[in-house]
């Protein structure tokens, strides 16, 4: 399936499966650091206009082996405002795999120090919702 850019008015959510990635103060930066194996993308779900139970159901079905703990919601436009330090900006691209609403945040920097910058910015722009 080809990728399409998410609508800036949409809400993207990153599901959180570890208590390492949030605290009583909100979402931690670590929720937005990509794994070494896929350093250029972060998996999210476009949750606009979905009822709450459906939002949680998608997250639970994506990782059946791990209980979902929380999620970090953010406006797509807020993500798209973040600079990649290469003259561009982050993108949110819907690929529809494994779920029709699945998307990836792309254009993440590869340098670890810059990944930490972007991760702190994403954490600041996101809202924590507990399951």
């Amino acid at each position, binding site marked *: 399936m080809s990728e399409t850019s998410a609508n800036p008015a949409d809400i993207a959510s990153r599901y959180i499966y570890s208590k*390492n990635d949030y605290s009583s103060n909100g979402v931690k930066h670590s929720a937005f650091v990509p794994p070494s194996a896929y350093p250029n993308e972060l998996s999210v779900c476009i949750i606009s206009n979905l009822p709450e139970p459906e939002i949680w159901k998608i997250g639970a079905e994506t990782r059946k082996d791990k209980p979902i703990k929380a999620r970090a919601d953010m406006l797509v436009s807020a993500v798209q405002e973040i600079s990649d330090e290469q003259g561009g900006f982050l993108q949110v691209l819907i690929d529809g795999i494994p779920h029709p609403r699945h998307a990836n945040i792309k254009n993440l920097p590869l340098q670890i*120090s810059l990944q*930490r910058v972007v991760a702190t910015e994403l954490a600041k722009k996101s809202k924590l919702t507990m399951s």
Partner: protein
Amino acid sequence: MSAIPLPKPSISDSVNWRKAPASRARYVATQSDSGKVSNELWDGVQKQRIKTVTTPPDDVRLERELADIFEECSSEGWNGYDAKPIDRESVQLVCSFLEKLPVDISYPELCAEPNGELTMVWIKRGYHLVIGIDNKGKVAWGGTSPSGRIYGDAKFENEIPEEVINILHSVEGSR
């Protein structure tokens, strides 16, 4: 760098902030010091000891955080997204970094990253700074400050790089 085997979550063995960090020496005064110092000085030491006992020090909090991280982040894919298990050499290097932290810089919060690194986080005075050390001893910092993005890297060779100390002093407002 050779791998240094750490015992499984025996935090008090691997994290010895109290043992002898010169910059945190206020925690290590003991009764055996009494023969070396005057009575007046000894009173001061005792007062400091009482203060340490009655106010739970940050190093106890750090030990708890590290124990939680070992419990939560020691298996493949702990975050649900292909995360690597927490790297014990990164943990040791962060502990060494913390031992050398000047006393006028507050202890950070600890947080594991999906790349296996242990990171230190300071959120203070408009700063949100993350510093991690990989298993090769590379210190990489990134975050935001009141004046914009801050990031960079340096080598950690038993001393905290000067550039990092300067950033931390800015975070604390102590310089």
